[in-house]
């Protein structure tokens, strides 16, 4: 048994498996950015980046980076055939108007009721910076979160109530951790999948919120 469960890449790949063919997808910074590498065979996703591109493609070849063609994390990207450029207000029409199907975000904390905290530790000396996170959770139909199950110090990231400042209340639909895939449902958190060799009890021991095992195969 590997007590670490899925790697970062495997978490991204597992999340990609749950994205339906033809989805319009926005990817947050960090592990979510890796999702772009794992489009399942036979599916086509269209990636939106909120700084003004629909149809974001894979990373550019080294030496072909264009400083005017970047993603929301300000990293160089490419544009696929059939892409479109637009300004920021039009970009957030897509996001805030409910046109993006799925957004995959990182998290500091997710609560049992789907509250998300991912923009600020709330520390007094921190420089607050929110970017598009609050717009995405408010506007996108389905919110996926990819996160380590615990912090490096072994603190839980799935909690009864978030202690960090919220990004949005009751916004998260599904959580992909290194240990499990967990849905936020009206009856509480439901484990839908477990990493190879990880037991439900192992996950529950590391989660201070009651989980329900409900794997639909």
């Amino acid at each position, binding site marked *: 048994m590997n007590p670490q469960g899925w790697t970062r890449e495997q978490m991204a790949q597992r999340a990609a498996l749950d994205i339906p063919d033809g989805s319009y997808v926005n990817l947050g910074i960090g592990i979510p950015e890796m999702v772009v590498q794992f489009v399942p065979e036979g599916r086509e996703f269209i990636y939106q980046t909120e700084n003004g591109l629909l149809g974001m493609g894979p990373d550019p070849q080294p030496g072909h980076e264009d400083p005017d063609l970047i993603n929301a994390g300000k990293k160089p990207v490419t544009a696929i055939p059939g892409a479109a450029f637009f300004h920021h207000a039009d970009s957030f029409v*897509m996001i805030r108007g409910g046109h993006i199907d799925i957004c995959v975000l990182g998290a500091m904390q997710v609560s049992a009721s789907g509250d998300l905290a991912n923009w600020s530790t709330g520390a007094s000396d921190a420089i607050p910076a929110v970017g598009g996170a609050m717009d995405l959770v408010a506007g996108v139909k389905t919110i996926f979160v990819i996160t380590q199950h615990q912090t490096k110090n072994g603190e839980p990231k799935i909690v009864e109530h978030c202690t960090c400042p919220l990004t949005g209340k009751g916004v998260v639909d599904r959580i992909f951790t290194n240990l499990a895939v967990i849905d936020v449902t009206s009856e509480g958190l439901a484990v839908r999948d477990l990493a190879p060799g990880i037991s439900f009890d192992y996950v529950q021991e590391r989660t201070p919120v009651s989980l329900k095992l409900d794997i639909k195969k």
Partner: protein
Amino acid sequence: MIDKTIASAADGVSDIFDGSTVMIGGFGEAGSPIELIHALIDHGASGLTVVNNNTGSGHVGLAALIETGNVRKMICSYPRTANSMVFPDLYRSGKIELELVPQGSLAERIRAGGAGIPAFYTQTSVGTVLSEGKEEREFDGKTFVMERGLKADFALVKCRCADRFGNLLFNKTARNFNPIMCTAANITIAQTEQIVELGGIDPEHVVTPGIFVDRVLLLENPAQESKLVAEGITYP
């Protein structure tokens, strides 16, 4: 694979249900998706609320749709033009409802609907009968009226060029309400004079990104409303 092209106008409108709100692009005949409107007449949903700047002319296109009696209510800014008889007659006899909205408020309400904005404030119509019953509010010493965002179940639009992702280009002033209606409808059906391969539309030139479009119908030689009217044609 994403391929939004459809085979027929009938396929495009087949799920428009009784009581739907349908936005129909165009300003007069420019940009009016006349073949999709005719398919909707054939399909025959009743109790529709239709959003368009005008009410059509002659007895084809939007005017013909209104003439079927299946339009319960029009939301528009200018319901009469030179050749519009259908709407005025129904309106005078109390058989159709009218929500009259200033043209700019109509456009902004549609954009707001597409942008997730339920309400906004504007100076337009303050102090007139068209602001009656609407909330007024002061900002920075001036009076504004609150207008609500407008959404639709379906939008029927006409464009010049499209690809299988649903990216759209329009023709000159036939652009008008079409792009914003694409954003405000749950399902958008576009008729286009041309379909090109992916990449055939420069990403810098895309007017309506495909995310706002659900179905694309190739109609290479669409009818011109004013010619049909001049020829005295009626539909169906």
